[in-house]
Structure formats: C-alpha cells, structure tokens
C-alpha cells in the first residue's frame, strides 16, 4: 500500500483524498501550508525558485515526516518551469536522504502508455476499468462542487451584514461537501451548502466593486499562498471573480456568452501572440475580458521571479490604458506580509469605489470602454 501525498491547492484536497482512498492508497493529507511549511521549503529550495516550488517542498517534507513515501503530482511541457518541479523535488529530496516514489502525470498525448502505466500503479485496490472511471468521475464532481461553493462565497461575502458570517458558513459548507461520498450525496451536499451560504444575512444595497483576479494558478488557488486575499477583498466590499478554478468551468461555460464569443486567447493575441508558458497569456486575455464586462479593476497575482507573469506584467499597463481598467500587481514571495498587502488593497479599493461613486453621482454609467490596438 502506497502512502500517498500530493500538492495542496485550495479545498481540492478533499476530492483527491477521496480519489486516492478509493483507489486503495493510504493518504497522508498535506497540511495547510503554514509559516513553518514555507520556512522548511525555503531552507532547501534554490533561492530564485518560485513560491509554489518552495511551498510544495515544505509540504512534501512535512508529509514525509508523517510517513508518506509516494508523491502524486502533475508535470508539464514548458516553457514554464513548473513542468520540471517534480524532477527537481525528487533530486532535492534524495539529496536530503528521502527516496520518494514520484508519480508524475504528464499530458497523456505525449506519452499515453506512461500515463496509463501510472494510472495502473495508483490502482492498488485493483478496481475494474469501469469502477476506476466511476471513481474519477465522482471525485471530479466533488472538485466542481467545491469550486462552485467557493465561487458563491465570493459573491456573498461583500454583502454580509455581520463580518465573518460568510466565513463560518463557508467552512461548514466545505465540510458538508467534503464528507459526502456517493454521487447523489455530493449533489445534495452542494445544494445544501449553497442554501447555507445564501442564508447569510446580507445588505444588497451596499456599494461594492467588482474585481477580477488573474495570475499564476498555484498562488490563485491556494489561499495560504496569497494570504487569503479573496477573503480580505470580500471584507473590503469587493465582489471577487477569479479567472481560474481547478475545473476550468468558468471559461468554458459562462464567458463565451457574456463576451461576444471572445475567448481568452483571442483577447490576448493583439498584445501577446505567443504562448509563453504558465498563465502569462491568460492573464493578459482575462484582463481584457474583465474590462469588456465592466469590472472595476483587476488584480494580478504571481510568485516572485515567475517569468510568464513578468512578461504579462510588462504588457498589462498598456492593456490597462487601452481599456481604462486599473490593474494592481502583487509579486508574492516568502517575504510578503499580510499587513502590507492589506494596506495596498485598501488603497486600491478606495480608489475604485470613489471612481464608481463619482460616476454614479454624475448620473452616468461607465461608458463601454473602447479597446484600441496599436494606436
């Protein structure tokens, strides 16, 4: 029996835990990244590796201390360096005397046999193909349920009457979905969780601003990495919409309707025609789309020294000018502190709110921004 651990990204660990258990592995649950995790990671990581590598290394080391012997993670084909992290982690861990079994899932189209072999390796319970498929489907629906309630919490938090109500309801909602096992139970739990969140007392007349969050996937998805930015923003009266969820559901379903069929890639191409790896091009594209949908601002989150996001960051001021949308960038590293970040966020939100109020008092709504490419 493998003692499996995996990277922790937001609440999705609940679904992965279920999946690994169903496949007959023992799960060493990765702890929520803390200051200690990060310190541990920083100690053994290269200095300029990005925050995700450091946090993950810390997470793995903590899991190893708890008895893990196998790491399940994803690979990649570049040019973002995250694709090489599994190999680097393995080397660093080996150098520290921990020989780990690394199960790295690469995109299946490149090495389909390798992909299948790894799937089989994880199948310790010797499930039939059909059962395997069912198990995967079930955990996928759980990830989706978790994403949906998280999304809902982002829309409720800025309107809550009593500060902290949403957090409490959300924590309970996550537990409910986390405990659900069968497909029906997950669906029921999701519905109940939704009702629970909507039952939070709200003040619908409050002046809120809408902010889109773009950037690198790990720091977007793991609240410990971005110092619970979404929560902070929610408390400041900001409706947050994150451009990325593990399920990628938003992009495929809602966006094509709301933005005249413009996809993220199409929106980014006038500014950045090349795929530069990571989520650099997505950051640019999403910013354009948020502007078109009349958002009040965009926040870019990236780990320090993340190359694709640096390229995006260099281009974003231009996008911001062309589409008349303010953009605030945070490069996160182990030195980032919450107080400084909150101050910057407060200032940003104040500016957006003042602008919105002025426009409202003048009796005009914000005019549809006109993008101009290469003027």
């Amino acid at each position, binding site marked *: 029996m493998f003692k499996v651990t995996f990277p922790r990204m937001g609440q999705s660990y609940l679904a992965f835990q279920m999946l690994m258990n169903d496949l007959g592995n023992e799960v060493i649950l990765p702890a929520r990244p803390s200051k200690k995790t990060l310190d541990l990671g920083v100690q053994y990581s*290269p200095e300029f590796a*990005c925050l995700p590598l450091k946090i993950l290394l810390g997470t793995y080391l903590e899991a190893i201390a708890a008895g893990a012997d196998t790491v399940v993670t994803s690979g990649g084909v570049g040019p973002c360096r995250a694709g090489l992290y599994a190999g680097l982690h393995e080397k660093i861990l080996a150098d520290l005397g921990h020989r780990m079994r690394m199960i790295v899932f690469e995109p299946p189209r490149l090495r389909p046999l390798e992909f299948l072999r790894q799937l089989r390796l994880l199948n310790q319970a010797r499930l039939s193909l059909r059962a395997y498929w069912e198990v995967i489907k079930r955990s996928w629906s759980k990830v989706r349920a978790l994403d949906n309630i998280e999304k809902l919490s982002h829309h409720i938090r800025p309107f809550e009457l009593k500060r902290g109500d949403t957090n409490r309801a959300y924590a309970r909602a996550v537990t409910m979905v986390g405990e659900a096992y069968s497909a029906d139970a997950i669906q029921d739990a999701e519905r109940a969780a939704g009702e629970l969140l909507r039952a939070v007392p709200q003040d619908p007349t409050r002046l809120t601003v809408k902010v889109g969050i773009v950037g690198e996937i790990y720091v977007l998805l793991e609240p410990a990495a971005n110092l619970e930015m979404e929560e902070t923003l929610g408390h400041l009266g900001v409706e947050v919409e994150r451009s990325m969820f593990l399920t990628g559901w938003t992009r495929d379903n809602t966006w094509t309707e709301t933005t005249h069929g413009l996809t993220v890639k199409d929106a980014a191409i006038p500014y950045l025609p*090349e795929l530069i*790896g*990571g989520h650099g091009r997505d950051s640019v594209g999403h910013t354009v789309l948020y502007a078109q949908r009349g958002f009040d601002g965009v926040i870019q989150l990236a780990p320090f020294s993340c190359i694709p996001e*640096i390229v995006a960051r260099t*281009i974003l001021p231009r996008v911001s000018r062309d589409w008349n949308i303010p953009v605030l960038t945070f490069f996160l590293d182990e030195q980032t502190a919450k107080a400084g970040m909150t101050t910057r966020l407060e200032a940003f939100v104040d500016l957006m709110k003042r602008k919105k109020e002025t426009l409202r008092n003048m009796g005009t709504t914000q005019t549809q921004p006109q993008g101009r490419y290469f003027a």
Partner: protein
Amino acid sequence: MAKIRVGIPGALMYYLYFPLWQTFFNELGIDVVTSGRTTKELLDHGVREALADACVPIKVFFGHVMALKDKVDFLFIPRVVCLNRLTVYCPKFLGLPDMIRHSLPGLPPIIDERMDVRTGRTALFGAYRHIGSCLGCNLVQVARSLSRARRVQGRYHRLLQDGCLPREAMASPRNAPMSHGQVPDLTFGVLGYPYAVYDDFLNAGLLEKLHRLKVKVLTADNVPPKRLAGQSYGLPKRLFWTFSDQVLRAAHCLFEEGKVDGIIHVSVFGCGPDSITDKMMELKAKLHRGIPFMTVMIDEHTGEAGLTTRLEAFTDMVRRRKEAAPCLK
C-alpha cells in the same frame, strides 16, 4: 534614396547571431546599426524603463533598444522560439517583442518575425524570406544573402569554439584567437548564458579578471557540440530552455571529464530557469568533490571590487589546492 537602417540591439541574442543577421541585412543592401557595448548609461535607462522584477539582461536589452530607437528605421527583435526542434528559449525571449512594444513609447516599426523550426523544415528560410519581402527584396536576393550570412555565421561559431570571445571573433573573423601574454596555469569552466558571460559590463569584466589571474577560461561554446549533445544530466526530462539546457550539459561534461580545475557559474539575479540550473549544478558538484564550484550572481548593482575579491579568493584556493595535491598522494 537613403539606405534603410535596421537596428540590432547589442544584448541577448546578439552574442550568438549578430554576424548572421548583420551579413544578411548588409547583403540585402540595408545598413545595420548596433548599440555597441553595454554602458552604465544604457543600463540605467533600461533599469528605469523595464519592470523591476525583470532580470538584468532584459533591463539591459531595454537600454539598448532605447539607445537605438531614434537612429534607425526598423528595430530587429525577432521572436526566437526554437532553433533546434528540442528546446525553446526562455519565456522572456518569446514575449520580448511584445514587452518592448507595449512598454516603450516612440519606437520605430519592429521586425518581430517568429522563428520556430518545429513548424516545418523551411520555417527558418520562410521567416527570413518574409523579413526580406517586408523590406522590399525578392526571393533570389534573400536566398543569396542568407546563404552568405550562414557561411559567415559558421565561421563565427568555429571561432567561438576555438576560444575566441565574441568581440574578437566579430572584429577579425579570420584570425585565430589572440594569446593573452601570460601563460595560464589553471583552467576554469565559466558557464552561463552567452549574454551574461560575454557582456563584460554586465559581469564586471569577469573573463578579463580571470585572464589577469592567469586562468584559462572554457565556456559552454568551447565544449564540442557533439559531446554536448550526447551528455545526459539525470533529470527525467530535458530542461525546456535552450541556453539552460546547454549550460547544464556543459557543466556535466566538465565535471565528468575532470579536466578543469574549477567551475564558475555566472547566474543572473531573479532568473527563473537559473534557479533550476544552478541547483542541479550544485547537486552535481557535490558528487565531484575534486572540482570546486562557485556561483557568481550578477545584477544591476554588481560591483567590481566585490567580484574581484571573490574571484581572487576562489583562484587562490584552487591554486593552493592544486599545488598541495601532489604532496597529499
């Protein structure tokens, strides 16, 4: 009619492909203007304009572009994606024309032809043909210029392999490498990206200082390409980026051959790929205790004195160790 002037910034790809591009444009009857060596002023301009989080070579590139922009009709900043079918260049190279275009005002038109050999056998020729046609030249002219340019480039590469520095090789393409007076008694591998190792302002004259310390320098370009291609480095997959891949291969070559007395890695502050390359080299160095290894990190604040001290200390240490070695046996 005045000749068209094309500007090629003297940073990044300049150190590898300038002779090719210069000959290509000259043969088409177009003047090539370059921004020359990196200077303090260029660097300062670049630092002011470029994003603070970008690495220093990118900032230097911004400086070079600013020095050129009012002197030329076109800027040549090709989007070099992949030239060997195996590895791509750093994401900053991939987005370089866009970064420049969207953050510097008042630029002349940019020739940002995409060069990616993975899209077909004739992709590279197609790219040059497109450049030529944009500048009003026909197919025959382009083909002739390109074949001449490639000959020049081949000669340049051989000179680099023989141990010439880019400036020497560009200045006197027919000469053999110059001797540096003193007879070196140590050999160091100095590994790093061409734009960090060969830019003597950026690395505060590292190569020159080593010469003065009577050290012979081997760079990644001096390792035979075939040897380099056959070298493995024990990662489940190749590094994605051409320069990092080469540096890491060269490091493994030098460590395993054991002919050098020490290895210096010239790394750049905040360089993403380097975080992996450097760690891998460090882990490799642990397996080869006989070859001392040092990382020199450069950024826009790199000072002469600090670097000199470190190099002298490293060289002294290696030299003393080498002298002591026969006694220990």
